[in-house]
């Protein structure tokens, strides 16, 4: 799981253009939206694309997003259980 969390942090930094940030700067348990990384709705769409493109996961229910995108740890846990590749 630690390897997946690190990979996810790297992918998030890349797709969201989080300039100057390193994986160490991201607390995997901190909220992704509102506080923490302070992401917005466009970033949420980019994370949905990230999951589909890199792990073959299609989110069917928008309400699922609230729980999945709560933190990097939550994303990693969901991906590890549902990834297609």
């Amino acid at each position, binding site marked *: 799981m630690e390897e997946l969390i690190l990979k996810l942090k790297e992918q998030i930094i890349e*797709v*969201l*253009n*989080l*300039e*100057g940030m390193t994986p160490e700067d991201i607390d995997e348990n901190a909220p992704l939206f509102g506080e923490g990384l*302070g992401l917005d709705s*466009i*970033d949420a*769409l*980019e994370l949905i*694309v990230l999951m*589909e*493109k890199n792990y073959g996961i299609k989110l069917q229910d928008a309400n699922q997003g609230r729980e999945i995108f709560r933190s990097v740890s939550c994303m990693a846990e969901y991906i590890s259980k549902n990834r297609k590749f």
Partner: protein
Amino acid sequence: MILVSKYCVMRRHTLIEDGKLIFESNPDLKYSEFLSAVYRNLQLQYPKFFKMDELSKTGFLAAEVLLSGRTDNRNLQNENMPVYMICRSSSLETDENFELTTGAEYFPSPSVFVYTLPNIVLGEIAIKNKLYGENTCFVCEDFANEIVFDYICQGVRSACPNEALVLFIDQYHGVGEVLAVLISEQRNENDGITGFTIEHINELLNKH
């Protein structure tokens, strides 16, 4: 008469404010790297900057120079100030970049898509500076467009107070430039740097 009270030019790895060179980068930097260098030089704290496309970064930085009160401690409180933008290449580069994300694998990028309209530059500036006045974007091959100048002058006269921010901006193929001017209606021509006319704007564009 409508006069230019402040201006900023950003092009060819230089940033100029009211005729003074305030930043110059290594000419070997790519344009995107130059924009980041300007951001750091201005000591801005606005992480959303890094998510913008190059057109928006160009306009945003020029507006910051004029509106932040960084050099003249001006306390800008004109939330009704209109913002106008005249651009040559529109958002063509971002349009092309977005098209690339819609290829065979088909994973279109939402964060690239949101910049596929040139007037989002105006939105970025308005959000950052809490400007609620008119904002209008013109796409013209030539900045020297009489109809556009007439429209802007009419807008300034209608605004309260009589002041506006105008951007002449172009960005394509990894190269960008902008002339940003703060203009206002004045009775005395000595109250401004130069007149807001096609002739004087061309002079500023060609001077730097």
